[in-house]
């Protein structure tokens, strides 16, 4: 057989040789620098590629579960209503049209709740934007923040994103975190104080931090030592985060 180091090495590493061939090639390797080099380089390349393997992030696991549950719900709704998906329009595409309309209606309700719930005082735009971005899993912008993400590993919160931008004239840095259970908290830091939300509950003194609920989202705001918003769906985690940062 013709001596072909590349082919032999590929088959040797790929487990494509019989036991006898493998034994014979192993002996040959010790005497043939070309075949040795082929095997050594490919092993190095394989190790390098394998070293980049990671576990799927918790957020992706949640997303997959959510997709399957949403599909199951679509299926159940179709079955219950007896509707047949329009030809050429899969349910998901119809949902893509219907969901934004529903979201717009919900947003209108949210605005009404904010305006009316605050006895006519409108929600400050910077807070509206922070809550909307939190819900949409968006950061204030793509600029590099002025500082590193505060260390919240004591709460098992790992940074998953950071970006700076502007909310209604306020320069804001956003830092997104997740804990192992997939719970999300976002910190918004600014050099200037955030305006108080209508209906906010004061936690300590006249200048102390305040807390408010907007739909499923809890917002905690402090002015000292930094202008800070802590936003999350788990109210307890929001308070713990504020406490870990020394503002509660």
């Amino acid at each position, binding site marked *: 057989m013709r001596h072909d180091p590349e082919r032999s090495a590929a088959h040797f590493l790929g487990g494509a040789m019989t036991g006898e061939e493998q034994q014979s090639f192993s002996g040959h390797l010790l005497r043939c620098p070309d075949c040795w080099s082929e095997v050594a380089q490919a*092993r*190095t390349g394989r190790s390098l590629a394998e070293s980049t393997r990671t576990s799927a992030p918790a957020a992706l696991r949640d997303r997959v*579960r959510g997709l399957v549950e949403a599909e199951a719900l679509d299926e159940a709704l179709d079955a219950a209503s007896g509707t047949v998906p329009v030809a050429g329009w899969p349910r998901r595409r119809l949902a893509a049209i219907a969901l934004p309309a529903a979201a717009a209606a919900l947003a209108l309700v949210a605005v009404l709740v904010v305006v009316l719930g605050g006895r006519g005082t409108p929600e400050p735009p910077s807070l509206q934007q922070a809550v909307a971005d939190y819900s949409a899993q968006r950061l204030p912008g793509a600029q590099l923040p002025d500082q590193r993400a505060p260390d919240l590993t004591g709460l098992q919160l790992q940074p*998953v994103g950071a970006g700076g931008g502007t909310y209604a004239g306020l320069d804001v840095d956003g830092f997104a975190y997740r804990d192992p259970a997939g719970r999300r908290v976002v910190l918004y830091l600014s050099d200037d104080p955030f305006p108080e939300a209508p209906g906010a509950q004061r936690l300590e003194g006249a200048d102390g931090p305040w807390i408010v609920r907007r739909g499923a989202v809890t917002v905690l705001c402090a002015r000292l030592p930094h202008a800070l918003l802590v936003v999350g769906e788990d109210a307890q985690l929001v308070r713990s985060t504020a406490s870990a940062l020394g503002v509660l």
Partner: protein
Amino acid sequence: MEVDDREFLEAFTEHLDRLHNLARGLTSHRQDAEDLVSETCLLALRGWRRHAPDDAAAWFATICLNAARSSYRRRAARPVEVAAEDWLLDRADDRADTAGSALASLEARRVRDAVGRLPTPQLEAIALMDLGGYTAAQTALIVGSPRGTVLARVHRGRKVLARTLADEREGGR
């Protein structure tokens, strides 16, 4: 949720790490990889309802590869959250406990960049075998090429990776 959907979710979740690694190899950005896995999940679920496959691992990977091929994810630009991860790691080098992980992350990024520059057949073979952990036989089935061809592609890709990374290290000294 129907029993079929529950079984699907269990099977898909079982293979999620491999699919995620495969998707990372087939795309340039973390967010694109997650979008690709999500798309794979939806396509696979609809197929699963019609007929559950014998080899779920290879079947999911085939769907993932076809979805990656049919879109142009490698060229897609996605700003916002993804940009931050690198920033956080790059700035963490003044803390002894995170310096090691920051270096490991930089090395992983270098390797991923080098994988991304491989010719597509080699890239797909490396993504399937070395990142996704699929066997040569499964990979041959997934890409629709003979096993010998797949072995040759992955071998050449690995050699290019080894040389590229060695050259980069030499250049960095």
